[in-house]
C-alpha cells in the first residue's frame, strides 16, 4: 500500500489491554501479526523467531481507527494537503483508514478522479484511503454524477459535502438511484439560504460580536428533510458533522421509526462552544459552526446512547493565508486528524462522559459497519490494522509539528493527557 510497508515480518503486541467492541473483548492479551494479518490473540503468546516485539503493557490495543470524513485535498489543492501528507497526519493521529471527500479540483464526480486518488493512495499513502464520490456533477446540485460508475470504481459513499443538495427532487432521485449499489449518501445538512453570509452560530455571542450567525434551525430543517427522503426511498442516509440538539433529536426519532439514518459528530463539536469564537480566531470558524453548551451536551448524550454512530473529524486543511485575517473572510474548517484522539481521551473519557470502550467502538467498529469497510475488529484472519493508545501520555498540542501540511487548529497549546501511541496498518508500523 505505501512506501512504508515492510510486511512479511511478524509482530507481537504484548500485554496490552485489548478493547475490541465488535467481538466483545476487553482483556489483557497478546496480539500476533503475521504476513499483514492478525493470526492469534491470547493472554500469553510465544514470539515467533524474528518477530518484532511491541511491549504494550499499560497501553490500550484497539482495532485501527477509521475516520470517515476527511478532506485530503488532492487533486487540485495540494498546497493545503496531499494524500501523502494527509495520510501521514492520519497515522500520527492513530487512524488506519480515512474516507476522503469529493470536493477536490476536479471534483470526484467521475471515475477518472476516483482512480487517480486510489493510485496516489497506493503509491503515496501510509494508511488505507477510501474515496467518497460526489452526488452531483461538479457539486453544482443540478445533475446526477455518474454514480454507478463511481461505485464500481470503489467509492464507499456519495456526498456533496461542503455543500448541501438543495434540490429535494434531485436528492431523492440520487437516493433511489444508488439503492442497488448498497452505497450510502452522506449529507452535509444545511439550508443554504438560511446560512448565506453567516460565519458562526446564531446566538448571544454572534449578537455581541456583530457577526451574522446561522441558526440551529438551518441544520435541523435539512436533517429533517433528509431523514424524510430516506424514509420515502428506503435509502441509507448518513448525516455528517451533527452539531445541534435538534438534529440529535431528529436522528433519534428517525431511527426509532425504522428509517435507515446514521450520524457522525466531530471532536470539536463535542468539546467547544460558540464561546471559543469570542477572540475572532479564524481557527474557530467551521461549518457547521460551534454551537451552545446545550448542543454539546445533547451531542455527547447522543454519542453515548448510539444515536450518533461514530466520530469523524471533518479534517479540513487550509493554508495559513486562508485562516488569518478577517473572521468573515476566512475559510471554513479546521484540521483534526492529529488532535482527535487526545482531545477525546482527555476531555470526554477522562472526566467520565463516555466509557473508553464506547469511544473505541465509535472510532473503529461503528464507522466500519456504517460504510461496509474492512477493519473495525481484531479477529483472527483480519488485516492487521491496530491502534494503540497511551492513556497517560501528557503533551501539549504543537501545530508546528503536525505531519499535515496545514496548521489550522483551535487546539494549539492545549495540554492533554492521553494520545495515540502506535499505529499499525496491514501489519506495518506507520507511526509511533
Amino acid at each position, binding site marked *: 500500500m505505501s512506501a512504508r510497508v515492510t510486511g512479511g515480518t511478524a509482530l507481537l503486541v504484548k500485554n496490552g489491554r485489548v478493547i475490541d467492541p465488535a467481538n466483545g473483548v476487553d482483556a489483557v492479551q497478546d496480539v500476533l501479526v503475521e504476513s499483514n494479518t492478525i493470526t492469534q490473540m491470547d493472554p500469553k503468546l510465544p514470539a515467533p523467531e524474528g518477530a518484532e516485539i511491541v511491549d504494550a503493557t499499560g497501553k490500550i490495543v484497539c482495532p485501527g481507527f477509521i475516520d470517515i470524513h476527511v478532506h485530503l485535498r488532492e487533486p487540485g489543492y495540494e498546497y493545503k494537503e496531499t494524500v501523502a501528507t494527509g495520510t501521514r497526519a492520519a497515522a500520527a493521529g492513530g487512524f488506519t483508514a480515512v474516507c476522503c471527500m469529493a470536493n477536490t479540483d476536479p471534483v470526484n464526480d467521475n471515475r477518472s478522479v476516483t482512480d487517480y486518488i486510489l493510485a496516489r493512495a497506493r503509491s503515496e499513502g501510509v494508511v488505507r484511503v477510501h474515496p467518497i464520490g460526489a452526488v452531483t456533477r461538479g457539486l453544482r446540485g443540478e445533475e446526477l454524477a*455518474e*454514480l454507478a460508475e463511481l461505485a464500481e470504481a470503489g467509492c464507499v459513499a456519495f456526498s456533496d459535502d461542503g455543500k448541501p443538495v438543495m434540490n429535494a*427532487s434531485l436528492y431523492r*432521485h440520487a437516493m433511489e438511484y444508488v439503492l442497488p449499489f448498497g452505497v450510502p449518501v452522506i449529507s452535509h445538512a444545511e439550508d443554504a439560504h438560511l446560512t448565506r453570509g453567516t460565519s458562526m452560530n446564531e446566538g448571544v455571542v454572534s449578537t455581541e460580536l456583530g457577526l451574522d450567525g446561522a441558526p440551529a434551525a438551518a441544520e435541523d430543517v435539512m436533517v429533517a428533510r433528509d431523514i424524510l427522503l430516506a424514509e420515502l426511498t428506503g435509502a441509507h442516509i448518513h448525516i455528517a458533522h451533527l452539531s445541534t440538539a435538534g438534529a440529535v433529536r431528529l436522528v433519534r426519532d428517525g431511527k426509532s421509526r425504522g428509517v435507515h439514518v446514521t450520524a457522525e459528530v466531530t471532536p470539536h463539536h463535542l468539546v467547544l462552544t460558540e464561546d471559543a469564537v469570542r477572540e475572532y480566531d479564524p481557527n474557530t470558524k467551521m461549518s457547521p459552526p460551534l454551537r451552545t453548551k446545550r448542543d454539546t451536551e445533547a451531542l455527547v448524550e447522543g454519542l453515548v446512547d448510539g444515536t450518533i454512530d461514530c466520530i469523524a473529524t471533518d479534517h479540513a486543511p487550509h493554508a495559513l493565508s486562508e485562516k488569518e485575517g478577517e473572521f468573515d473572510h476566512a475559510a471554513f474548517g479546521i484540521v483534526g486528524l492529529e488532535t482527535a484522539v487526545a482531545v477525546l481521551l482527555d476531555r470526554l473519557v477522562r472526566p467520565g462522559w463516555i466509557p473508553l470502550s464506547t469511544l473505541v467502538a465509535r472510532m473503529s467498529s461503528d464507522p466500519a459497519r456504517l460504510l461496509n469497510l474492512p477493519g473495525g475488529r481484531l479477529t483472527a484472519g483480519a488485516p492487521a490494522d491496530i491502534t494503540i493508545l497511551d492513556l497517560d501520555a501528557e503533551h501539549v498540542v504543537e501545530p508546528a509539528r503536525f505531519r499535515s501540511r496545514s496548521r489550522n487548529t483551535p487546539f494549539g497549546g492545549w495540554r492533554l493527557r492521553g494520545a495515540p501511541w502506535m499505529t499499525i496498518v496491514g501489519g506495518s508500523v506507520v507511526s509511533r
Partner: protein
Amino acid sequence: MPWTRKDLLAMRDLDAAEITLLIDTAASLQEIATREIKKVPALRGKTIVNLFYEASTRTRTSFEIAGKWLSADVINFSSSGSSASKGESFVDTAKNIAAMSPDVVVVRHSAAGAAALLARELTCGVVNAGDGAHEHPTQALLDLLTIREKKGHLDGLHVAIVGDIAHSRVARSNIHGMRKLGMTVTVAGPPTLIPPFVQELGVKVAYRLEDAIRDVDVIMMLRLQHERMMAAGLIPSLREYAHYWGLTLDRLQAHARPDVLIMHPGPVNRGIEISPEVADGPYSLILDQVAKGVAVRMGVLLLLAGSKTGEAA
C-alpha cells in the same frame, strides 16, 4: 363472445376473454398482408380519422394501412399546421371532427387520459393510440400476438421489461395484458425510472439488468427518452445508462437463456438501450412486431367500426 365496447382505451379495462378475442381476430387477419390484392371489403364506406397530436409516423402509418386494407376511408390529422396550432383546444377540435360523422377516431396525445376524454365527448368509437405515459393498448396486443405466435402459448411465460418504466405507456399496457393472460412480468431499470408501488400491479422488480434477464422467455427493451432524463435528475448520463442497463451481446450470452426472444416497441436507440447485434440478431422479433401491428390494428378497427354497438340488430 362478441365485442361490445364502443372504444378501446386501455388494457386495464379488458378481461382475458376480450384480449384473446382481439389477438385471435388479429391472427386471422394476418394473411391479408400476403395477398396480391391487399383489400377486403369489410369496412367499405366507413370513415376512420387518425387524430395524432404527438409525432408518430410509424403508428399512424400502421393504423392507416390497417384501415385501408379493410376498405375504409382513412383521414390523417396531425396537430401542426392545423387548427390546433391556431389555438383551438383539443376537445373543440375533436368535436368539430365528430360533427363530420367519422365511424372511428384513433387518437394519440401527450396527455394521459386524453383518449378517455375524447371517448366521453364523441359518440363514435375511440381507439387510444397512446396517451402520455398511460396506455398504448394496440402495442401490447401486437406484442402479445408476436409472443404467442413464436411460443405457441402465452400463459406461464416470463417477460422482462427493461428501461424507463415510469414514463412508458407500452410498459403499463403490457403489464396489464400479460398479467391477465397468466404471464409473469419483471420490470427492471435504474430505481429512478421504476414507478413507485409498481409491485402492486403484480410485477417483480429488478434494479440490475443481469438479475432481470436471467430465466425469462422474453426480454422487452424500452426506448430511453433522453430528452428529459438528465435535466430531471433521473439518470446521470446516457453513457452510464448504456453501460449498466444496455442489452449487449455479451450480457445476453452471459445471463439470459439461449432461446430468449428480444423485443422492442421502437424506434430503437442502437447503442443505448440495445446494441445493434442484438437488435438485428436471430432472436430479435422487432420487425415481426411491426408486421403484427398492422394485423392488430385491422382487428381493432374491424371490431369497433364493423358493428354498430348500441343499436338493436
